[in-house]
């Protein structure tokens, strides 16, 4: 009796897991299939579930005529630079906010929580007027600056969360041995922070890679577009074929999927311990 009940439960559990897996994989699988269909098989009725042969024509068009490689490199450059800077500065302030006692610290932490709630699209208009005056519109450096700003508060909160969990005694013994505080930070604490650094950087990279609204407002020349802006301009142009758009979507998703696969463990830790946001 007891055993059969357990078997039923296990089967139900397996069915549930299979359901979630299918739900998660199916959309991506279908867009990938669309992108490798020969173009003439994309708009058929009834729908062809499987291409008669694999065709890379959509990707050739994407990287050839549509020049997607350029947008891809722009996105890589922007996302990596902004994430690097915000990770480094977040480590500085996160360290101080986690490890040192001083007046006003609580206020600063609460302030960071409020700042990280402000979404990009609310800031983009005043930023646009500011950046017009500074001649930073339509420049990758301008958008990098915006992304550093968007990531700074949350990266700091995350860094603080990781620093808090590193035992104080380790650093104190280094200080006793005559290390300066900065030296102790680099020699003792930072190596233990590597998972934290991976989490902060990956998280920030994903955010930057996916940001579209500020980028679409700021970057208006063809040579400066990032990947989301390019996808956006594709759908605005009449006559873009879905197989090419599908290829563009697939390419645009690869970097963040790769980052997630590599850093999932760290990201999950960063999300669930001492931080509130996505």
């Amino acid at each position: 009796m007891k055993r059969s009940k357990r078997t039923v439960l296990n089967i139900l559990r397996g069915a549930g897991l299979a359901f979630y897996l299918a739900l998660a994989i199916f959309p991506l699988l279908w867009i990938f299939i669309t992108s490798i269909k020969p173009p003439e098989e994309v708009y058929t009725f009834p729908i062809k579930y499987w291409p008669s042969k694999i065709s890379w024509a959509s990707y050739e068009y994407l990287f050839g005529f549509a020049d997607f490689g350029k947008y891809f490199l722009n996105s890589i450059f922007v996302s990596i630079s902004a994430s690097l800077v915000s990770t480094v500065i977040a480590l500085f302030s996160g360290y101080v906010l986690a490890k040192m006692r001083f007046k006003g610290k609580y206020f600063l932490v609460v302030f960071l929580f409020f700042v990280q709630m402000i979404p990009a699209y609310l800031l983009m208009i005043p930023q646009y007027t500011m950046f017009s005056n500074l001649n930073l519109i339509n420049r990758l450096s301008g958008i990098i600056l915006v992304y550093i700003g968007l990531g700074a508060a949350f990266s700091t909160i995350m860094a603080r969360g990781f620093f808090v969990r590193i035992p104080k005694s380790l650093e104190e013994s280094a200080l006793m041995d005559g290390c300066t505080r900065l030296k102790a930070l680099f020699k003792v604490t930072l190596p233990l922070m590597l998972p934290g650094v991976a989490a902060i950087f990956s998280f920030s990279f994903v955010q930057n890679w996916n940001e579209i609204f500020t980028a679409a407002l700021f970057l208006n020349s063809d040579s400066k577009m990032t990947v989301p802006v390019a996808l956006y301009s594709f759908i605005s142009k009449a006559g873009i074929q879905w197989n090419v758009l599908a290829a563009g979507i697939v390419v645009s998703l690869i970097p963040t999927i790769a980052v997630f696969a590599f850093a999932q463990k760290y990201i999950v830790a960063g999300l669930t311990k001492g931080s509130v946001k996505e």
Partner: protein
Amino acid sequence: MMKNRKRFWFIFWMLVPVFSVIGFLSVYPTIKGFILAFQNYTVFTFNRIEFIGWDNFEEIITDPDFLMILWNTVIWIGVSVFFQLLLGLGLALLLRKPFKGRGIYSGLVFYPWALSGFAIGLLWSWLLNGQFGIINDLLLKMNIIEEGIQFLSNPDTAMLSVLIVNIWYGIPFFAIMCLAALQSIPDSVYEAADIDGASGWAKLVKITLPYIRPTIISTVLVRSIWIMNFPDVIYGMTRGGPANSTEILSTHMINIVYYENDFSKASALGVMVILLLLVYTLLYLGFFNRGEMEL
């Protein structure tokens, strides 16, 4: 004394980069947004800007569609959060006990978290295409419908469609948060319940849910705000259309910027969003015991 001074400057210089970046790129723009809201800054008038009082606010509120947009926003947040939580919690419960390949499995179901909302919107608009979409095709083959549905170009189905996609997109986040909370429940609690002969359902209601309640509350709060400010999926699918049927406050603001080029009117809407956020947060914190928040 000397040491104290050194310590002060150390703290100061470590904090300067982040807080000056935030000052320059978050605080100052927020203040500037409040000012812009009372001006007439459009792309065409930027060299003769004047203060025009509450005109922008009036223009937004008297828009005949404004109430619908507000209602859409409420639906967008409420329905999304409810089902994301329900399905996310379900997934987390399935993942609580270890099994072979759990690591890889969770990677495969959690990955949507990392994807671009806009690209996901685009992707699903292809799946939901009225003519060549695979969803229509499958529904037809299963005899659930008799002819293809124009999911995104029909105002009656557009909201439902963007909601389903947003729910799909948000399941992993809730699952990740719930799973972490579930894993912090000590096994001994369940063992004790087993000895008392508690049923699976009783354990869920009496142990599991009370244990993860604080996590659920704080996640729902944070996520509601986040979803309200998440126009990406809608923008990839409908841009707020057709006929404003999927327009929420955030897409409305972006549409005002992109298509009317009226920065001041958009800023006025932004001010209203910020005030709404504040009110919502205070109400929520007041409603639930603040001590339970996992800030």
